[in-house]
């Protein structure tokens, strides 16, 4: 006869060992015999309805693992399976079988240590830290530029929420730890959560997990409002969120019996987060141009002072300006009208101000790389003349840069109108 395997997802914590034991005992009463636990999933074999006592223990003595199992079996316990080589599940029909863990103090030390290090607590923190450093530090170091508003804000929100979630979990652990320590000192048992309490805790985690994509979504919508290209993606996130909500409410109605939907919910949340990330990545490097029509010729900014003045005159909405401890970065553009009203001439600016020479150097290298190594350095008249006029060797687009003190100015001009009648010796103004 072929046995039927039943799988059930159950999110559990090592501080809820009693709940696990009660859960497995209940399953056995319902005719489901535990076979194994893999990736937080319980596999049951359909069997007879039996009254079985389960014991879930945290055991980390790897060097004596086999002897431990054999001795437990000698004491009337049947070894069922282990989870991550630290949680061992035994069962027995003998109600008088000796307790596996008899020293509460020693047991508490082991459980507390494993519960603290249980995946999901610290891993999450490290993940958040990794993102923080990856995004803020490495980007600034290797690219020399600063991420756009939407990207920075969403990533920062993600990191903060990750920390918040970890902090709540750690607080929960700390409360359990304090309570346990007090009871242990009074020679009482470790207060492992029972099934009822574990279900209540699961509900709280559900709410926290729900709040997570909500806040991320709101952030993405808020910062994305200025970017038409990600609005559609934000809508997709919103739809995913509504589906999440529906699944969660449905899940709540069924208590914690069917965890499969919870896994779907978690996956959908992850998808929502990924969508937001993708959306913000799309906005990377995008900036709104200053399409204000400016007078020709004399008003073309060529000096650092001109550029700073131009920047100050523009609002945050039309200029990308970001500052970190490494420096300050501006991106903006100007459109100039020629005498012929149908002809326009655009200049795109990027200004990086930093006290760190390596930031300036890396930034120039990056821009040079982006321009296939043809970046013009304005260290002579010819350089800037070529950038603006380029009458000798005409190219439709041209990019040049100048360094003055702690400032790098990168100027990129669009195709010049034929009848260009302005010319300023930029070098004279700059240096």
């Amino acid at each position, binding site marked *: 006869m072929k046995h039927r395997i039943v799988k059930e997802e159950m999110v559990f914590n090592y501080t809820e060992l009693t709940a696990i034991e009660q859960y497995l005992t209940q399953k056995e009463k319902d005719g489901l015999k535990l076979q194994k636990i893999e990736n937080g999933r319980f596999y049951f074999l359909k069997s007879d309805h039996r009254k079985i006592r389960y014991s879930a*223990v945290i*055991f980390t*003595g790897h060097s004596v693992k*086999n002897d*431990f199992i*054999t*001795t437990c079996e000698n004491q009337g316990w049947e070894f069922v399976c282990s989870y991550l080589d630290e949680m061992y599940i035994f069962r027995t029909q003998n109600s008088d079988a000796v307790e596996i*863990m008899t*020293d509460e103090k020693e047991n508490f030390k082991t459980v507390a240590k494993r519960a603290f290090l249980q995946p999901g607590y610290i891993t999450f923190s490290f993940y958040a830290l990794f993102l923080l450093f990856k995004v803020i530090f490495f980007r600034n170091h290797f690219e020399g530029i600063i991420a756009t508003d939407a990207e920075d804000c969403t990533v920062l929100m993600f990191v903060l929420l990750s920390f918040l979630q970890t902090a709540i979990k750690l607080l929960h652990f700390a409360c359990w730890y304090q309570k346990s320590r007090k009871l242990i000192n009074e020679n009482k048992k470790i207060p492992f959560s029972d099934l009822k309490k574990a279900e209540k805790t699961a509900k709280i985690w559900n709410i926290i997990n729900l709040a997570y994509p909500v806040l991320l979504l709101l952030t993405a919508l808020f910062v994305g409002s200025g970017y038409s290209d990600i609005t559609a993606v934000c809508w997709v996130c919103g739809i995913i969120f509504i589906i999440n909500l529906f699944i969660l409410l449905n899940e709540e109605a069924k208590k914690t019996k069917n965890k499969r939907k919870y896994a779907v919910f978690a996956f959908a949340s992850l998808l929502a987060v990924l969508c937001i990330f993708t959306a913000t990545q799309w906005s990377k490097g995008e900036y709104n141009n200053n399409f204000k029509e400016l007078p020709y010729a004399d008003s073309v900014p060529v000096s650092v002072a001109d550029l700073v003045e131009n920047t100050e005159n523009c609002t945050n909405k039309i200029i990308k300006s970001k500052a970190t401890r490494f420096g300050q970065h501006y991106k903006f553009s100007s459109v100039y009208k020629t005498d012929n009203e149908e002809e326009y001439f655009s200049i795109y600016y990027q200004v990086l101000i930093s006290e760190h020479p390596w930031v300036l150097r890396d930034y120039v290298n990056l821009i040079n790389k982006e321009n296939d190594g043809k970046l013009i350095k304005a260290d002579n008249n010819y350089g800037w003349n070529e950038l603006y006029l380029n009458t000798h060797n005409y190219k439709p687009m041209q990019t040049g840069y100048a360094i003055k003190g702690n400032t790098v100015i990168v100027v990129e001009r669009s195709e010049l109108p034929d009848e260009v009648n302005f010319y300023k010796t930029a070098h004279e103004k700059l240096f």
Partner: protein
Amino acid sequence: MPRKSLQTLSEPMYYVLLALTKELYGTEIMSEVKRISKGRMSIGPGTLYTMLDKFYTAGLIKRVNSGLATKSYIITDEGKKVLKEEYERLKALISDGESVMEVLK
């Protein structure tokens, strides 16, 4: 350092080390502890092997390969030293207590 955490033995640890003055298997250690403590102390296999792992890591006991699936354990010289120190400490506690208890009588 593991040895440091074992400078003061807990009551079950003390009994397990006492039992291991002769070579024993896990189940035998449990029975021996019960016998030495005259039934006052009972140790579960989980607690026992958590201790054995600590003792083994600290070099207080050694495993004896008997060719069977399970291994037997026996105290080492280092273990004997720790046990003796603990015994002296407990004796001193009793001695100190006795002088006070005499007054109470």
